[in-house]
């Protein structure tokens, strides 16, 4: 049961992958199918294990992540 939810602003994500590297639950991955207007593969949530720890959002250089807790 998910305790949290991450929402990625895909338009401003630059696909740097810092959020992916720090997620303790491997919730995030860089998309293999989506590409944004700047040509980057944005991060996306691939499972519902999020615990709302906000580690991803703290590392995001572009403030592209919003985290909610249930």
């Amino acid at each position: 049961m998910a305790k949290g939810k991450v929402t990625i602003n895909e338009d401003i994500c630059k696909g740097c992958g810092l959020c992916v590297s720090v997620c303790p639950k491997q919730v995030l991955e860089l998309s293999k199918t989506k590409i944004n207007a700047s040509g980057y593969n944005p991060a996306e949530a691939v499972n519902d294990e999020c615990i709302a720890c906000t580690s991803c959002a703290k590392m995001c250089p572009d403030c592209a992540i919003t985290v909610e807790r249930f």
Partner: protein
Amino acid sequence: MAVVFEKTKALTDLKMHYCPGCAHGIVHRLLAECLEESGDVKDAIVAVPVGCAVFANKYFNFDGIQCAHGRAPATATGVKRVQKDKIVITYQGDGDLASIGTCEIVHAAARGEKITTIFINNGIYGMTGGQMAPTTLPGMKATTAKNGRDPAVNGFPLRVSEMLATLDGPAYIERVSVSTPAQVTQAKKAIQKALEIQKKGLGFTFIEVVSSCPTNWGMTPVKAMEFVREKMIPYYPLGVYKDITAEGGK
């Protein structure tokens, strides 16, 4: 459902021009969050450098001045002396602060100007394409040091926090990093403390952020953060170098 993290209102909605994984964005956010949380957004003035952060004032939702190369501490000195009730911050990189601007930062610190400097140390010139900076590590490659920095030819890197901590003017000096979420939290606390000390008028405050430059280091953003932890931090140890508010005044 409660929102536990969202973009601070002290940043504009403009998309940042920085390369993917550049830590400038993290530090911009920390400064903006600190000012928003203390309610000082309308009273803040940031003096921005020449370098990658040259457009930083477009991303902050508060006043900014774009300064001549390395001269942000001199500009900030003038601003603070005529607007004593404002929070005046300089935001500078290592090419700006530790090279062309060494004179200005040393003397602003020595005078104990009541400003806060945020110093981004990533050991390279970013905007101009990866030339060797005063902070480039021995052995680290740059476009002007093809085989890596050789201290016998190029001299040794500057440790700016340690250097400034020998002066009497600074009230608070801390070196932090942003290579892990825990370090980001610590960096925010350091900036908060520096801004509080500035508000109390106790003296010059200086926060050095050991940062990365994935593009010019030729690494992925994640590898660059590993390099920060494994190579940069051993040469530039994190910690508080001066704190006159601590017991005994370190």
